[in-house]
């Protein structure tokens, strides 16, 4: 059986199968909580645990899927390009929004980690939770965090952002799609952006811009930590 798991087709097939179930459940229930990514991750983890499949075997195919994260992030440039007039017009609010947002993210994580008496390495791994994975890995290494924990925090934050973005938009009475997009990208990076694209082209483009800007702001703040 292990020959089957070790094939790259196993990880790829399991992921597509789980994602299609997620998309199907999402369409049937029309609920934001039924997020296809969340459902897919849960199904895959259950399959891997129940059949005791080594994570390395899943990753043979999984790594091939991850390769496409680069191009998938890069093509956000098209959304940015077609919304460039809006970006120019609202450059100042977008810039200030990402600066305030990233500062609030780092500050509130720091204070809460203190309040919960978490150990130092764990706290430092949490500080980068709102930036996209490659930023988080690089920054957490620089400030003495544990990269694999940083990635876990990033992914959980992203899934949370994708699931609750529509709810948060209503909660904070965000009427401007530019503000909604920047908030999604700053708080929940590329995973949140996958939801922003579904909400609209403006939301998607602004969220895409915010990924880069929040990352840069966080890099700069981290130089002082």
């Amino acid at each position, binding site marked *: 059986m292990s020959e089957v798991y070790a094939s790259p087709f196993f990880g790829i097939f399991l*992921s597509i199968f*789980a*994602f299609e179930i997620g998309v199907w459940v999402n369409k049937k229930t029309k609920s934001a909580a039924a997020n*296809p*990514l969340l459902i897919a*991750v849960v199904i*895959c*983890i259950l399959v891997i645990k129940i059949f005791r499949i080594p*994570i390395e075997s899943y990753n043979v195919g*999984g*790594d091939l*899927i*991850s390769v*496409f*994260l*680069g*191009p*998938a*992030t*890069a*093509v956000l*440039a*098209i959304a940015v*390009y077609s919304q460039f007039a809006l970006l120019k017009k*609202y450059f*100042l609010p*977008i810039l200030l*929004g*990402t600066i305030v*947002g990233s500062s*609030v993210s780092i500050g*509130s994580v720091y204070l809460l980690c203190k309040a919960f008496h*978490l150990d130092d390495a764990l706290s430092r791994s*949490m500080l980068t*939770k709102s930036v*996209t994975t490659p*930023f988080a890995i690089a920054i957490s290494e620089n400030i003495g965090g*544990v990269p*694999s*924990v940083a990635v*876990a*925090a990033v*992914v959980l*934050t*992203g899934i949370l*952002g994708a699931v*609750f973005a529509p709810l*948060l938009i209503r909660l*904070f009475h965000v009427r*401007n799609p530019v*503000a909604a997009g920047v*908030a999604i990208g*700053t*708080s929940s990076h590329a995973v949140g952006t*996958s*939801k922003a*694209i579904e909400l609209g082209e403006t939301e*998607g483009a602004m969220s895409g811009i*915010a990924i880069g800007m929040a*990352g840069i702001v966080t890099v700069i703040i981290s130089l002082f930590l």
Partner: protein
Amino acid sequence: MKMMYQIGILFGVCLIGQTISVFLPIPFPGSVLSMIILFLLLYFRVIKVDHIRQKADFLLKNMAFFFIPAGIGILSSFDLIRSSILPLLTIIVVTTILTFGATALTVQGVITLQDKLARTGKGKGKSHE
């Protein structure tokens, strides 16, 4: 061959972005650099959106899918976070809501302020929507 051409452009851009990120003195992801490079190529009309439209639409529409392996990666650090899983989840939930709210309200507030300044400056109302 059209599809092959589109994939070629995108992977070429990613290769350049990745290469530049290796040589930068500060941590900056290749994928974000690739996004900036692709934007500049579009902006200066080196390539047209139509040159990469189908491949880009495929990637954007299915973006969430490509994060599945990263999500499953949580399994590998689970032993490290197991003992403090509840505080960690609480921190993630609370700070994500705070970050979202602070960002959205700042952007919306500055836009409102700019509109007001523009109105008093020019003496006439200018709506942005």
